């Protein structure tokens, strides 16, 4: 049985123009210790998926309209707020893109880690502090005992992200959701954070859901990938298969539009592949048609008439009428 399985999830946002699904009938599952990546442009619903799993869909504009989030036999879509609060940060944790704005500036980093331990594990003040220092050490902060007394503004971006990871891992969660964890960081620091996340997975067996727009990060970190577009799943499959033979035109575009670092650089520099246009506005989400049709070259009449069904091709699941 998978650790987490999401079935036909639908999250709606209420706007002035009406109610639209930001997540539209998305299903996936996560095995224990697996690294799953969710990729897509901004506005494709990948962060909203993470928030739905955490029970943090923004209220009152957002609503979990349908579907199940099964975690260890419990449907997280149905549980009470009290129960969710005891799971959040304990069984399922999340780290965010901008470590400066997600840490509390007026508490020391040690206190922010210790708080989680006191709250969820019922440790005493002193034991929690000691454990916080150990965690800072585990995420690779030098001189952890002294740094536990530092405030977030006294640390660099990479160190803040390490503190975020220490907070998230304090209770040894089964699932860690990382929402663009390295977007605000330098490449060298990004490599260190990735290495840290991989090491922690080996040590604690935590399953990771990595939310990113960078296919390079997917290649580096994940076993399985879901490509999301306009609130729907465009393609899903093992990372190797998807990178080798992307079947959805959006996946192909996402891989081809980025200038990848090559080993053997030559004089030859072809133009980058462009995905024309931008993500459609929220008001067209939920239409019974392919939402990628205006940006796709291989579009047929069918793309205007019906939402593409998810089909299994080889190891991959693809939602495109003309994929093969």
């Amino acid at each position, binding site marked *: 049985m998978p650790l987490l399985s999401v079935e036909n999830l639908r999250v709606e946002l209420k706007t002035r123009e009406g109610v639209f699904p930001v997540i539209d009938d998305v299903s996936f599952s996560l095995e224990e210790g697996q690294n799953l990546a969710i990729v897509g442009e901004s506005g494709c619903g990948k962060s909203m998926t993470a928030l739905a799993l955490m029970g943090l869909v923004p209220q009152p504009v957002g609503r979990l309209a349908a579907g199940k989030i099964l975690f260890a036999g419990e449907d997280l879509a149905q549980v009470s707020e009290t129960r969710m609060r005891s799971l959040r940060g304990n069984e399922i944790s999340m780290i965010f893109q901008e470590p400066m704005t997600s840490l509390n500036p007026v508490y020391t980093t040690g206190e922010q880690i210790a708080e989680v331990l006191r709250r969820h594990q019922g440790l005493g003040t002193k034991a929690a502090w000691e454990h916080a220092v150990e965690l800072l050490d585990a995420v690779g902060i030098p001189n952890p005992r002294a740094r536990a007394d530092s405030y977030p503004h006294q640390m660099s971006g990479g160190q803040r992200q390490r503190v975020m990871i220490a907070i998230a891992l304090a209770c040894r969660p089964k699932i860690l959701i990382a929402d663009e964890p390295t977007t605000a960081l330098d*490449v060298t620091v*990004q490599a260190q954070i990735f290495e840290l996340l991989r090491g922690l997975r080996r040590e604690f067996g935590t399953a990771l859901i990595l939310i990113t727009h960078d296919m390079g990060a997917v*290649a580096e970190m994940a076993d399985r990938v879901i490509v999301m577009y306009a609130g729907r799943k465009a393609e899903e499959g093992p990372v190797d298969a998807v990178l080798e033979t992307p079947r959805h035109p959006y996946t192909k575009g996402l891989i081809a*539009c980025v200038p990848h670092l090559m080993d053997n650089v030559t004089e030859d520099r072809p133009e980058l592949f462009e995905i024309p246009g931008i993500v459609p506005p929220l008001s067209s989400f939920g239409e019974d048609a392919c939402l990628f049709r205006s940006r796709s070259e291989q579009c047929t009449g069918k793309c205007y008439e019906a939402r593409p069904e998810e089909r299994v091709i080889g190891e991959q699941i693809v939602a495109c009428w003309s994929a093969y």
Partner: protein
Amino acid sequence: MPLLDVRDLVVRFPLKRPNLLAPRPYLTAVDGVSFNIERGETLAIVGESGSGKTTTALAVARLVEAQGGQVTLAGQDMLSLEGDGLREARRRFQFIFQDPYSSLNPRLRASEIVAEPLRSLGGTAPEEIQSKVDELFAAVGLRPEQQRLFPHQFSGGQRQRLGIARALGPQPDLIICDEPVSALDVAVQAQILNLLRRLQAERGLTYLFISHDLGVVQHMCDHVAVMYHGNIVEHADRLTLFNTPQHDYTKALLAAVPSVGKRRRDTAHESAGAGSA
């Protein structure tokens, strides 16, 4: 003769005195940097945040004050210019900024944003300005009817196109692109990078391209300068730098980039190994 020649550029920022009597300490952000760019080429400056790459560009454009060194643009010394001479010289380099959201005046219509440098930096007769704006809008791929809109009505990629049109207006010798695509969505980045290269080919533009994204740099530049702690640690042409990096820092930077190619190769290795076993 190179279009831009920078020699031993030094920029220092004053720090707070530790106490009243102590001498004022300085942070040396750019520490004796030298490079040059030929007309029609692209030089990329890469490095981590805090390595001094943006400060170097700002000092070249006289937007921060340099404490030492020489900057020569097409034979003219830039650092000694003052007053009208400086204003006249500013026409010759333009900036494309990282964040297209905060670098456009929200109260001006798109046509005004593009027309403003044409007016204030001179060189264009008032009656020609509208036709020039039309031409610039077409060149960067914006529709004529979009001239009436305000910046908030554009998407991120379109705003960056507006920034490019504004920079092209005064026909500068040098365009400084400071992380021009890092605030944009992946799919939109390709559109802007292709546009920049197309404009360079059509108009013979010279770019000083600042980026931390080595994939983008590899695609865009002819020469690369790698900066670390205010110094250029390696400066080479594109093929040499990426194929045979010399400095350890350059190698570390290249190794840190996650890439799709690396994974494909690793998998190929594994399956080849498994096949022979």
